[in-house]
């Protein structure tokens, strides 16, 4: 492999953070491979996204503003990759990133590695490092047997850095095809908020929260003080206190924030596998013998409902002092 192509996910031109991480990492890997770092951005608003990408260290930004949902993205990626020749494609490990990356892989018959947290490049061969089984093992997989390969990078692991790079903007010619899927409408049910996968600080609540209210009050306030996101254990989601999108764990999301604060969460295996690769884990629990005591960096045994509001105040004060 020689070139590296970052697939850019965006909403009407606003780029997801994981895609900026992909754009930055594309440069790092392309330098190791001795090739070019390219970006592909498709869909309504793509030209605006391309302007933002000019601040990232890319050689070229390929743009299609055709409105053909995921088909348009996969077609654009295929056309740029085939034009560039042997290439590694980076997508974010997100719903759209995974859909587009895997479809591209099926089309060009190449390997796909998901949830990548590190790369090794040796002699033009790219290997991807991926935690599996919730971080129980770390696997390394080589992309081989094709000119192409796809890696879905775990959000929040690679840096996104603006530089003086000024990638040339290139229009992707239309292939004249219609979308196989019709988008009839799009409904926002929640205010667009930072997801647990992308937040650098996650404050999660479990069974100990006792109801839905803390998820929109004390936990939310603490998460906001950090500029982070609210997560939840399966018990809290199954009880209907908070939506599934917030769930961390085996049947939810696997995340690696810099700081994970587990509130009223016992730390059952099912939850542990979703968060044990967090850089630092702080737990607040009534029970000092809860399983989470075994792997939290700090467990404070006490009443979360008394501690959290105090903590929120102190975090706000500390942030204000730095501002």
């Amino acid at each position: 492999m020689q070139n590296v192509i970052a697939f850019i996910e965006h909403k009407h031109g606003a780029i997801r953070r994981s895609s900026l991480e992909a754009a930055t990492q594309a440069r790092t890997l392309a330098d190791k491979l001795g090739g070019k770092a390219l970006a592909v951005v498709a869909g309504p608003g793509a030209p605006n996204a391309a302007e933002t990408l000019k601040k990232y260290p890319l050689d070229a930004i390929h743009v299609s503003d055709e409105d053909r949902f995921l088909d348009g993205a996969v077609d654009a990626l295929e056309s740029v990759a085939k034009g560039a020749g042997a290439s590694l494609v980076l997508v974010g490990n997100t719903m759209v990133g995974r859909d587009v990356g895997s479809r591209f892989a099926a089309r060009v018959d190449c390997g796909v590695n998901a949830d990548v947290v590190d790369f090794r490049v040796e002699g033009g061969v790219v290997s991807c490092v991926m935690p599996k089984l919730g971080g129980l093992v770390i696997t390394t997989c080589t992309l081989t047997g094709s000119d192409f390969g796809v890696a879905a990078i775990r959000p929040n692991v690679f840096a996104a850095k603006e530089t003086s790079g000024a990638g040339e903007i290139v229009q992707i010619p239309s292939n004249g095809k219609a979308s196989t899927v019709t988008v009839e409408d799009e409904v926002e049910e929640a205010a667009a908020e930072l997801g647990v996968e992308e937040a650098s600080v996650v404050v999660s609540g479990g069974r100990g929260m006792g109801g839905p209210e803390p998820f929109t009050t004390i936990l939310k306030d603490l998460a906001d003080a950090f500029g982070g996101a609210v997560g939840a254990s399966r018990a809290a989601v199954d009880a209907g206190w908070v939506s599934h999108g917030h769930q961390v764990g085996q049947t939810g999301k696997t995340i690696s924030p810099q700081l994970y604060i587990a509130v009223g969460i016992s730390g059952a295996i099912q939850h542990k596998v979703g968060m044990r690769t967090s850089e630092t884990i702080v737990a607040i629990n009534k029970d000092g013998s809860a399983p989470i005591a075994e792997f939290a960096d700090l467990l404070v045994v006490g009443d979360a409902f008394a501690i959290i509001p105090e903590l929120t105040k102190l975090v706000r004060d500390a942030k204000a002092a730095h501002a």
Partner: protein
Amino acid sequence: MPDTNADKRIDPATKRLVRTGVETVLNPFDEYAIEAALQLKEKLNDGSTVTIVSMTPATGKEIVRKALAMGADDAVMVSDDALAGSDLWGTAVALAAAIAAQGPDLVITGTQSTDAISGDLPGMLGEKLGFPSLTYARTLEVADGRVRVQRETETGYMTISAALPAVVSVTKSANEPRYPSLKGIMGAKKKEIKQLAAADLGLTVAVGTDGAKAQLTDVATPPARAKGQVVNAADGAQGAQTIITFLKERKFL
């Protein structure tokens, strides 16, 4: 796949998942797909049938049987040592061939499996079958030769539709999977499970370990997280101060 609720261990010698003593279960995400198929069949009530297609070692037969006990009509099991070690791409190629041979109007999958945690297969099947793919569906309806779903997004949903045949992956919000009834369990014993080997698939490319395009080269066990400090907080202020001090030491604040 192994039971979701069991703690998983890796054999340090073989670097493989220890499956002994862990009950093998139907992928919980696939139960939503089966339930969605059964509900659709019941609603259409037009003679449509539900066929289970599974790529699994021969030992997976009881799992396929459970899917039949839920109410599926018949099943196709793709089992062959030559398929062992297939990567995602190889799995998509082999499964698409087995599915294509059934001539389906609609292919319904789960969103992911909890053992390998990968949501990539539905879109790959769509590409290999030449069908549109509608992923992360929380509702599913079929009318006038089209399938319409609500696709979950991070902030809500979008309504999308496509002409049949199509691939749909359903999320766990789609339904509440039924338990097999006693009648269903008894009936499942008489239902056909068609066995397919790799040679039956008419593949023109190598799959399995040799054909894999993502080759596993290393499995390492990371060091276990060390047990940290445990501090008893007399009140909210003390608990909060303990955490702030810890976060400042670690340069979070």
